[in-house]
């Protein structure tokens, strides 16, 4: 498979899996307004997923469309980061997962607006408004929870520590990523990581949270299709109908 197709699938898979996870909060948020906000973010990400998939399917030229990419690939063919398939857990877990992701996603998308691939740059420009809002929102809530009550602080710090080992996978560039960097399609890892660490550090300081060690060991594999035990369950639920009634139109 072409490097660019793989790269686009990674972008799409990240957005799709996180969107699917956030959608599970529908009707279960801690407040009506939070419920709306979480599902709004889920819809934003789903919209981005479709744009990445559409382009990936076109480049691939194998006659697959966005629906087939979403519903007819199995876990080993998904290339989302492990962070995003981690369970929703409690509200702090969900928000920390979101915050780690948003902090990377924002700088990535911002970088992609200058991509040498005009189609990618256009999709990024469209997504930038959404991810700017996501970043502001999750950062704001992390500060509120971290610097909230003793209990909220405790839970938020626990979520920060728990998810930390999944936060670095996005900066572990493999041959596909490097090919994209040399082609001027994607921003280099070091640049993104510096921006990410600075932002996360800033928000954590304001939230009175302790930043886990930056040089800690990081779990990876999701980008190459080696996933945690969680993804299979997510896909089983997400893909059930398409598997049961293949080729059905809706």
């Amino acid at each position: 498979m072409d490097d660019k197709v793989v790269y686009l699938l990674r972008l799409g898979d990240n957005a799709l899996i996180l969107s699917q996870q956030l959608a599970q909060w529908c009707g279960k948020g801690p407040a009506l307004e939070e419920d709306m906000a979480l599902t709004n973010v889920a819809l934003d990400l789903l919209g981005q997923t479709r744009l990445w998939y559409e382009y990936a399917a076109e480049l691939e030229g194998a006659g697959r469309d966005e629906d087939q990419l979403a519903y007819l690939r199995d876990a080993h063919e998904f290339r989302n980061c492990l962070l995003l398939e981690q369970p929703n857990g409690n509200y702090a877990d969900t928000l920390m997962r979101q915050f780690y992701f948003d902090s990377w996603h924002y700088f990535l998308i911002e970088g992609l607006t200058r991509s040498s691939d005009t189609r990618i740059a256009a999709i990024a420009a469209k997504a930038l408004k959404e991810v700017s809002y996501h970043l502001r929102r999750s950062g704001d809530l992390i500060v509120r929870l971290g610097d909230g009550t003793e209990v909220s602080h405790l839970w938020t710090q626990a979520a920060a520590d728990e998810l930390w080992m999944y936060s670095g996978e996005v900066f572990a560039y493999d041959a596909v990523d490097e090919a994209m960097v040399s082609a001027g399609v994607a921003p280099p890892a070091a640049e993104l990581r510096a921006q990410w660490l600075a932002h996360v550090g800033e928000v954590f300081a304001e939230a009175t949270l302790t930043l886990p060690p930056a040089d800690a060991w990081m779990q990876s594999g999701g980008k190459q299709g080696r996933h945690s035990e969680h993804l299979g369950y997510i896909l089983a639920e997400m893909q059930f109908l398409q598997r049961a009634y293949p080729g059905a139109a809706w």
Partner: protein
Amino acid sequence: MSKEWPLWEIFIRSQHGLAHKHVGSLHAPDAAMAVNNARDVYTRRNEGVSIWVVRAADIVASSPADKDTLFEPANSKVYRHPTFFPMPDEVKNL
């Protein structure tokens, strides 16, 4: 809703709107979050909107019982309404 989440009234000026219109209310712990929530609940993040949030407790409303004293004088005196002046063509759309 817990007592720490007061009610906020939301006023929104739409993209081509001239004035802020009351669109509804929501609960939020503070003004900043009320603005954020208003974006999610009432604007779906349309561009070019302006949002005002006001704590419901800060709004003073007229009492329905005062309806007559407040509005009647105008209704019964047609000479108070500027409807007897022919308008020049140039300002037809006023």
